[in-house]
């Protein structure tokens, strides 16, 4: 029952947003078509900019997987990971997602490509990646811009929130997709 509602909201959220945005734009007499083209250009730029990062990370993680490293780690941590229902392939994602947005996107693509888009690993990673921001990048940019040297409790708060995000992602994915 709850799952049906969640699926319904998931399916309708994007069309509803598109509709609201377009209707609002028409009412406000915005040239919606030209504005769309303008924004789409930015979108193309984003994906071109991201390509070198994707190559760097996808190649590195593909190498890591092919090397059998995950099999070794799996044997080492099998007990804990099994108990938490966390696939070993998600481990690097947990650490990198706070450091680099393009890197974590590369790792996620690699997982989706390797396990298929509808596998549990891919869905868990999708939630983990989609719900996070790159904490250390944000810290550097925002505090760097005004010359703050002492982060005080901001750093700890960011790290705690990241950990809660990982736990929540695992919980929600287990609840809905396992």
């Amino acid at each position, binding site marked *: 029952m709850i799952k049906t509602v969640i699926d319904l909201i998931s399916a309708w959220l994007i069309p509803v*947003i598109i509709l609201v945005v377009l209707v*609002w734009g028409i009412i406000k007499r*915005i040239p919606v078509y030209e504005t769309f083209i303008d924004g789409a250009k930015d979108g193309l730029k984003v994906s071109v900019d991201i390509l070198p990062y994707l190559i760097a990370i996808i190649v590195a993680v593909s190498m890591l997987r*092919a090397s*059998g490293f995950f099999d070794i780690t799996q044997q080492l941590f099998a007990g804990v990971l099994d108990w938490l229902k966390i696939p070993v392939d998600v481990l690097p994602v947990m650490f990198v997602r706070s450091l680099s947005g393009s890197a974590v996107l590369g790792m996620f693509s690699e997982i989706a490509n390797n396990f298929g888009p509808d596998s549990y690993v891919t*869905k868990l990673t999708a939630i983990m990646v989609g*719900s996070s921001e790159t904490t250390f990048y944000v810290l550097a940019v925002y505090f760097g811009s005004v010359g703050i040297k002492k982060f005080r*409790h901001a750093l700890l708060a960011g790290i*705690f929130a990241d950990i809660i995000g990982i736990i929540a992602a695992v919980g929600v994915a287990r609840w809905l997709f396992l």
Partner: protein
Amino acid sequence: MNYIWFLIILVSILSAAYTGRISDVVNAVMKGAQTSVEVALYLAGIMAFWLGIMKIAEKSGLVAFISRLLTPVARKLFPDVPKDNPAIGDIAMNFSANAFGLSNAATPIGIKAMKELQKLNKDKKSASNDMCTLLAMNTAGWQLVPATVIAVLVANGSKNATEIVFPTLIVTTITFMSAIVIVKVLEKFSPAQKPEVNQEGDND
């Protein structure tokens, strides 16, 4: 990131030496590079479409409208900011732009808010409580639709990529709420700021 990247490759080659799968690793280099280009190509279409729609939200004032609705909440979260200070509006705008996935718009507004908060800060080298709260809001990054993630799923042949939309929304909401609570709790234990004396003078 330099060390992490280096470490991943180093560990791969060492593990391959241990497991005897070095030829698999070499093949992975070729295949990985090819996959990256494919992913970026697919990503281009969906990202372009989504950012096109979001540009309309920005230009038509929808983002600004939502941030006006959020202003009273922002005032509660940033108690040290005086009434009518531009920082509050910037903070609400920063949140709304993030929510719509307009990170190119969100970051400059967020930095502007940070600069306004810096003007109110008594120790220019150390973050004020309000600055930490703004940062927590941004590191937790609440987002309505994870467009990039959906794009990657579609690029890899997902039949039902939007399935993860609401679950992700649940998780991002939990994380965001926790970040606010955590930063407000830690504020109580954080060492107090020292007002600057005889250093660079007062900036006001």
